[in-house]
């Protein structure tokens, strides 16, 4: 039973990481129709900026240091996302395939630059000692870092919900995901919403990047690729444009993957991929997505 809980919570912890990547991807596609292959780069930018800050903050990393690294990493990634949107994406307005292609190019360039500066090997990320302790949950000893991942993901989900429900820009985003043209027809410059969504997506991915670096025992430009693929899988299964859908799907996939890996090593990736194919063939709009024309 306690193994069950351990695998379950570890799975949810992993799902939390997937959600941090998927949330932004989902909104960006849902609102703008852009398949953002550079989303993994946001993760890397956040991870490396967070790493740089954490190493500057002294030999012992406290929780405050770590949280600061997360926030600064997130902001850096958010700004990078905004920059990319302003310089490249807006100029390709409504050329959706070209927008997706340009993000592929950005992903390559960022990967090359970071790989060139830092190398592709894993570099230990300064971690607070508390992360290495274990917490007793129902008899299972859960590594403390999982709790941080889950807490961060839940915080992001709540913040996202609040933004969408209570702010004007959130209203615009919700309406825009449903009918972008009509929002323009109401005299609202929907491009402001685009920039906001890109920034938020970048920020979430950047924060995720810092956490992923801890989970993966090190930061490296190569990790972004795997999480990008999983991000897409989560977004598609959860439903494009639906952040709660991504949350649900992310948890599901995290848990399934961990359980599959427990029984047969390496089975996890395979099972998830088959799950994706299955969902797409049976219910193409995903769990909580709307049927798009």
């Amino acid at each position: 039973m306690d193994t069950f809980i351990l695998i379950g919570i570890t799975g949810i912890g992993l799902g939390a990481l997937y959600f941090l990547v998927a949330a932004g991807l989902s909104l960006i596609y849902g609102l703008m129709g852009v398949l953002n292959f550079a989303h993994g780069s946001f993760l890397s930018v956040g991870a490396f900026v967070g790493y740089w800050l954490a190493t500057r903050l002294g030999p012992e990393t406290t929780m405050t240091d770590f949280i600061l690294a997360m926030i600064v990493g997130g902001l850096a990634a958010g700004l990078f996302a905004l920059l990319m949107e302003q310089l490249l994406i807006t100029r390709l307005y409504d050329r959706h395939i070209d927008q997706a292609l340009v993000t592929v190019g950005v992903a390559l360039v960022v990967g090359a630059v970071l790989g060139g500066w830092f190398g592709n090997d894993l570099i230990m990320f300064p971690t607070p000692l508390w992360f290495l302790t274990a917490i007793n949950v129902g008899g299972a000893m859960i590594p403390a870092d999982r709790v941080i991942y889950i807490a961060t993901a839940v915080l992001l989900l709540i913040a996202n919900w609040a933004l969408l429900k209570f702010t004007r820009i959130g209203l615009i985003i919700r309406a825009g995901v449903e009918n972008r043209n009509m929002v323009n027809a109401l005299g609202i410059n929907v491009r402001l919403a685009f920039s906001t969504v890109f920034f938020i997506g970048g920020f979430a991915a950047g924060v995720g990047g810092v956490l992923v670096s801890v989970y993966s025992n090190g930061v490296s430009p190569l990790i972004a690729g795997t999480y990008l693929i999983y991000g897409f899988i989560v977004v598609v299964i959860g439903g494009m444009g639906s952040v709660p859908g991504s949350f649900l799907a992310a948890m599901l996939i995290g848990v399934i993957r961990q359980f599959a890996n427990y029984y047969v090593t390496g089975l996890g990736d395979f099972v998830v991929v088959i799950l994706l194919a299955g969902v797409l063939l049976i219910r193409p709009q995903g769990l909580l997505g709307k049927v798009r024309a």
Partner: protein
Amino acid sequence: MLRWKYSRPLLALLLIVLAIAPLFTALPLGMPGLQQTMAVAFIWGALALTYDLLFGFTGLLSFGHALYFATGVYVSCILINKEIVSWWLAAIIAIIASGVLAALVGAASLRTTGITFAMVTLAFGEAGHVIVGRNFFNLTGGENGIALNADFIPQFWIGVFNTKYIYWTALLALIITYVVVWWVTESSAGKVFAALRDNEQRVQVLGLNTQRFKLLSFVISGTLAGMLGFVMLIAAGSAAPRFAESSVTIALLLMVVIGGAVTRWGAVLGGIFYSFASTRMADLTQQESFTSIPHWIGGPIAEPALLLGIIFIFIVMFAPGGLSGAYYRLRLRALTRKSS
């Protein structure tokens, strides 16, 4: 009209030069090093063309094309190593296997379109990558792949001084691929592919079964990729999981866009250029003069993805037709200037 009247004869001349060049050891192409590089470049050029048939001609954005390439590599390698059949029969079986796999995956995936289709093909491609990487059934050699057992393939492909035979095999494979794709795209089926890319509804209104045509394009493309997988096995001497990675399909996408998605020779050029540039850049960064550049510039430049990514962004933003598109645009301008 847009084709320069000397382009066909010149192309024939180029092919002849490429074919006989390895015989002259004094020339650059007489050296095994360059022969190997060019052989690999030819394979990538041909592979890019198979992807172009799918994406540039039929408008199907697949992210799992590497699957069929890898199938060709692995099936032929396993069959040859285990001495199940002779090498040429192994090649044929591998090609058929790729085709059958493409038919199965295609039948399932083509029930979706657009982004969903891209994601489904990505899923199947990744599944393939996972299978070869994790050494299921102890067949696929896991992370390190399988080295081809040289005893079971003809002598003329073995040894440094026989590199020119590998070169010629790759060149032959490129020519075969080009001829097949040319024949398919010029045929009436090919016209339907192009119509599908532009407006699927109009094709359906004509009473044509769009599913069948898409599947045809998918299977031809996958089968050719399988053949090229076998050729790559000979050229590389081993089967490795990197042939099944999604980064392969992304590279093909880059090649096709850089070369120009709508033209055949553009895709081939894109593939050859990309492959050549990656290999050459890797060599360049080893040189003396390079190490004197400060690390923050030199580091990224050493990664081929940097230059390719920048070129790619530039082309997508400002020259969406790629190199061949730019060529035809200039040609059009020259022609209209002549007539006015």
